[in-house]
């Protein structure tokens, strides 16, 4: 069965532009990206949109569908109300390039700032490490990230307050957690997290968790545990006194 659905798509360059209406036919099984491609093929050949895998794995087709950050290729038309126009806008938290495409390269720069993985000395004579699956399970969740940056887009610290210079955003708190909790890693990222990477800006509203297409429990499993580690180090007077007496750890 097919129906006519109207899409309200943001058209324009470098932030200037407007929403334009396109009506197209939707048949069963279509996702939003299919509709965008159909509009591109039949009505707006110059409509810029980014995509790659159409399988929810490359993280390229991120956009705001009806105001919520989503992967266009994983958003089923059948899950959206077809009786009203469906808005499709570019990610709001990054510089706009054209139509549905934004420049997400800030994220690549942020990633470079995070201390690299520093493994302990190899456990075995052949230069390998031994790790228990139980210890690796926790960080494996974080490795599901496809870097779609939907979480960065929805996070109000970036989206609404533009604190990009001070806050790395949920994606890179997940990345930091994957390294910091790794059983073989020895680097210390807590001073960076507190000072330069801005973990204190997160006010745990869980919007990032809600939009993650990989269902990573960003706030509960990555951000809050990192916040707790920062509290251990900097904001817990009893632990500080204990460390001072026993000489363990340090700032």
């Amino acid at each position, binding site marked *: 069965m097919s129906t006519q659905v109207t899409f309200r798509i943001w058209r324009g360059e470098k*932030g200037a532009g407007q929403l334009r209406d396109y009506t197209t036919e939707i048949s069963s099984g279509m996702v939003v990206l299919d509709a965008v491609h159909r509009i591109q093929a039949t009505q707006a050949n110059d409509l810029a949109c980014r995509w790659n895998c159409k399988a929810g794995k490359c993280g390229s087709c991120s956009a*705001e569908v*009806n*105001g*919520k*950050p989503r992967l266009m290729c994983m958003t089923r038309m059948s899950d959206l109300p077809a009786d*009203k126009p469906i*808005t499709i*806008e570019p990610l*709001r*938290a*990054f*510089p*706009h390039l054209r139509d549905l495409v934004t420049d997400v390269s*800030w994220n690549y*720069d*942020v990633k470079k*700032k995070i201390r690299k993985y520093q493994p302990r000395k190899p456990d075995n004579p052949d230069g390998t490490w031994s790790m*228990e699956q*139980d*210890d690796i399970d926790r960080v494996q969740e974080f490795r599901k990230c496809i870097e779609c940056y939907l979480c960065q887009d*929805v996070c*109000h*610290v*970036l*989206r*609404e*307050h*533009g*604190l*990009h*210079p*001070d806050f*790395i955003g949920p994606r890179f708190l997940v990345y930091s957690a994957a390294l910091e*909790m*790794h*059983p073989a*890693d020895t680097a210390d990222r807590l001073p960076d997290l507190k000072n*330069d990477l*801005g973990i*204190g*800006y*997160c*006010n*745990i*509203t*869980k*919007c990032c968790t*809600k*939009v993650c297409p990989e269902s990573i429990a960003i*706030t*509960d499993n990555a951000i*809050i*545990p990192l916040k*707790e*580690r920062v*509290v*251990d180090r900097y*904001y*817990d007077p009893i632990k500080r006194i204990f460390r001072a007496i026993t000489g363990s750890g340090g700032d």
Partner: protein
Amino acid sequence: MSTIHVPVTRNGFGRTSRPDAWWVVPLLTFLGLGAFVVYVTWAAFQGVHYRFGPYLSPLYSPEIFGDPRTAWFGGKPDWFPSFLPFTPALLVLWAPGGFRFSCYYYRGAYYKAFWADPPSCAVGEPRKSYCGEASFPLILQNIHRYFLVVALIFLPILWHDVWEGFWFDTGFGVRAGSLILLVNTILLTGYSLGCHTLRHQIGGILDQLSRRPIRKQGYRMASCFNRSHMLWAWTSLFSVAFSDLYVRLCSMGIWTDWRIF
């Protein structure tokens, strides 16, 4: 940190492209938490009708000073400043109150519902400036771990109240009030055991949990409760208020405590 020029097109308070009723959840949170705070404050100032038979309202537990016949250390102490209001609840409520106020779940919820920071995900905010929890005053939320310690001390006391709630003048029995206190304490225990800070202290702090089998089991248990921390938070919130209401109305003679056996 690298800088970026984003023409942050702030839309103003409440502006969004979301066509759904995004305001429903923050509104319910506002009403739910607001009603709880109003009721608990009112009940804490009453100072009467907090016991009925063997039941003690959880808002008044432990009764450190209060009714000389039932309180741990007798009536209102002489040294208690006369200009301060006194009820047994006011002496203890700071602890569970502070525990909930600084709980990670409630923080996220009331920042949205009471402070619109943000009003809901991807919805415009009323203020431009933002400090988050990076500086005063919200940096003080990090005190949560100390409230956790006090909350964990309260739990056995509440379980003792449950036990007492099954012993009547006629001996052991089960009445509606006994079960209400039991369910309330189960919910409070589930809420406390799912605390993020507890989960962290038990095992989250370690990168190689497999070397500490007991802590690993503790971490698993805390993680299990933690996954539905929000549910425990809300159900225990309502049950605490309802338990007080039940004891209060029974004590006032408005409700009859239903006898099961």
